[in-house]
């Protein structure tokens, strides 16, 4: 008990304003904010909203992927590095359906467009999410479950191996090329008033992501299985003592995480119209940064972190220079880990 309290104190210590390190941290944030504010004002409103819309859409995809990272971390304290590749798998699998006779059967071909694609697209989401979920359950079953009582480094290394394996499979399947992903979404801009607009595409992406997140939140907080998942994450032994089958709750976590990542994969394809076998690695790292930013293990935190990282991404691309965007994102990762390892909404429950 004492050690738990100490651990808790240890993680919150960086919050105090006493140490010089924190002063430096706050200064860096202020300077960055000041510099960006200036550029934003110079850029004008229309450009700002365009960039923001792009950032929110990007952030929605990060958020969907980050949720899987954070949920899996929450329940078995594993950074599932294969998660980013399950996301790519979602894009690949859905693309394979669209380009196969099966796609034509449900009314989706690479040249489809218009309102007629809405229903088939929904079907595509369901099938792809299900596929990714089942793959992820299999991954947990063969690669992580046998190592559940092993030192924590072991499953972590396995996760990296799993990531390489998935990338390898996709590479062999479609080759190391940028694959064209069909463009089903409308290209028009929706006016927001005052000359500002947002792309219809961005709205679609954000709406889908938000709907999925709302469903997830309801499931986690209201359903019996959702509560059992939270209970397992909070205290695995106690959960077992209440009769909760933790293998089932852990599988459910991998299932849901991968379903969200799979949806993210389709959205990614639809938004950028291009996908490549190794995309998931880097995207996974962005999403991981988002999860850490929000507080790893914290579900609302991952959603917020995703949107924040997405906006930072877009703003950096739009107002500074694209080649510094990636270093900036990972600087944020390091920054958060140094100054606030519990993230924005890290767990804070006192132990008695």
């Amino acid at each position, binding site marked *: 008990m004492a050690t738990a309290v100490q651990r808790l104190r240890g993680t919150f210590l960086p919050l105090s304003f006493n140490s010089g390190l924190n002063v430096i941290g706050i200064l860096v944030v202020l300077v960055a904010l000041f510099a960006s504010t200036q550029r934003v004002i110079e850029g004008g409103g229309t450009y700002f909203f365009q960039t923001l819309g792009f950032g929110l859409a990007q952030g929605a995809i990060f958020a969907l992927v980050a949720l899987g990272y954070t949920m899996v971390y929450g329940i078995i304290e594993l950074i599932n590095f294969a998660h980013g590749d399950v996301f790519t798998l979602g894009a690949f699998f859905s693309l394979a359906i669209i380009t196969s006779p099966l796609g034509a059967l449900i009314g989706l071909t690479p040249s489809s467009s218009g309102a007629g694609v809405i229903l088939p697209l929904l079907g595509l989401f369901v099938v792809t999410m299900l596929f990714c979920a089942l793959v992820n359950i299999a991954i947990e079953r063969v690669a992580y479950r046998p190592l559940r009582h092993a030192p924590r480094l072991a499953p972590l290394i396995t996760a990296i191996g799993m990531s390489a394996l998935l990338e390898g499979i996709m590479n062999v399947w479609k080759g190391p090329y940028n694959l064209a992903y069909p463009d089903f979404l409308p290209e028009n801009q929706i006016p927001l008033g005052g000359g500002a607009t947002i792309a219809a595409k961005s709205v679609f992406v954000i709406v889908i992501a938000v709907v999925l997140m709302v469903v997830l939140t309801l499931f986690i907080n209201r359903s019996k299985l959702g509560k059992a998942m939270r*209970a397992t994450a909070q205290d695995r032994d106690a959960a*077992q003592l209440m*009769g909760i089958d933790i293998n089932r709750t852990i599988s459910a976590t991998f299932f849901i995480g991968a379903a969200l990542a799979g949806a993210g994969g389709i959205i990614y394809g639809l938004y950028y119209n291009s996908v490549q076998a190794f995309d998931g690695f880097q995207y996974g790292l962005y999403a991981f940064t988002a999860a850490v930013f929000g507080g790893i293990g914290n579900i609302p935190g991952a959603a917020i972190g995703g949107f924040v990282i997405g906006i930072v991404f877009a703003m950096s691309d739009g107002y500074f220079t694209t080649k510094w965007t990636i270093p900036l994102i990972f600087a944020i990762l390091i920054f958060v880990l140094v100054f606030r390892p519990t993230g924005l909404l890290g*767990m804070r429950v006192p*132990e008695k």
Partner: protein
Amino acid sequence: MALLEVERIDVFYGRVQALHGESLQVDQGEVVALIGSNGAGKTTTLRTISGLQHPARGTIKFNGKDITRSEPQDIVNMGICQSPEGRRLFARMTVLDNLRMGAYTRRNQAEIKQDMDRVFELFPRLKERLNQVAGTLSGGEQQMCAMGRALMAKPKLLMLDEPSLGLAPILVETIFQIVREINAQGTPVLLVEQNATKALEVAHRGYVLETGNIVQTGTGKELLASKEVQTAYLGM
């Protein structure tokens, strides 16, 4: 036939042997106390009965059925539930959700409702704190919540691990009073305690555990009167 029969179990943590051929039993309607000093194996005994740990040798039978190798969720399903050492509540969930998790294996909503009312009768305090997050309860309230949660499984055998640990003396009285009440309502209790005096006062029978061995057994009164127990555990 005894309700719970633990027969000569050996339990290991890695290479360290925690229990050496421990045997004990609990009969219908009893309160049985398991006392012993720190590290004697009391918690290990309960963890093993609950299936979190499996014995290398020996058997555990419940209602005549062998549960030695059963999984924890099956054991809860059969009717053994415990309130673990250190309470182990789901700290970020409300009191209500903690209680509901206790009833996780049950389906009949009407019965669950009934048992929840019974828990509120035993612990009126929990009703006031229903929507409070469990991690913010006081130590005594957390203990009540943990016991209530275990009762929500409607156990045929309730195991309590150190229910009085870290509580103010007045609360300790209350907790033991409630153990009596739970037992009076028909639930057998296996009680693990460091507070040997109180535990033996409540218990029909008791076992003294020393470094993984049962070294003494008898009725609560006999043990309270025993010289060895008095010097070793009652501080007389």
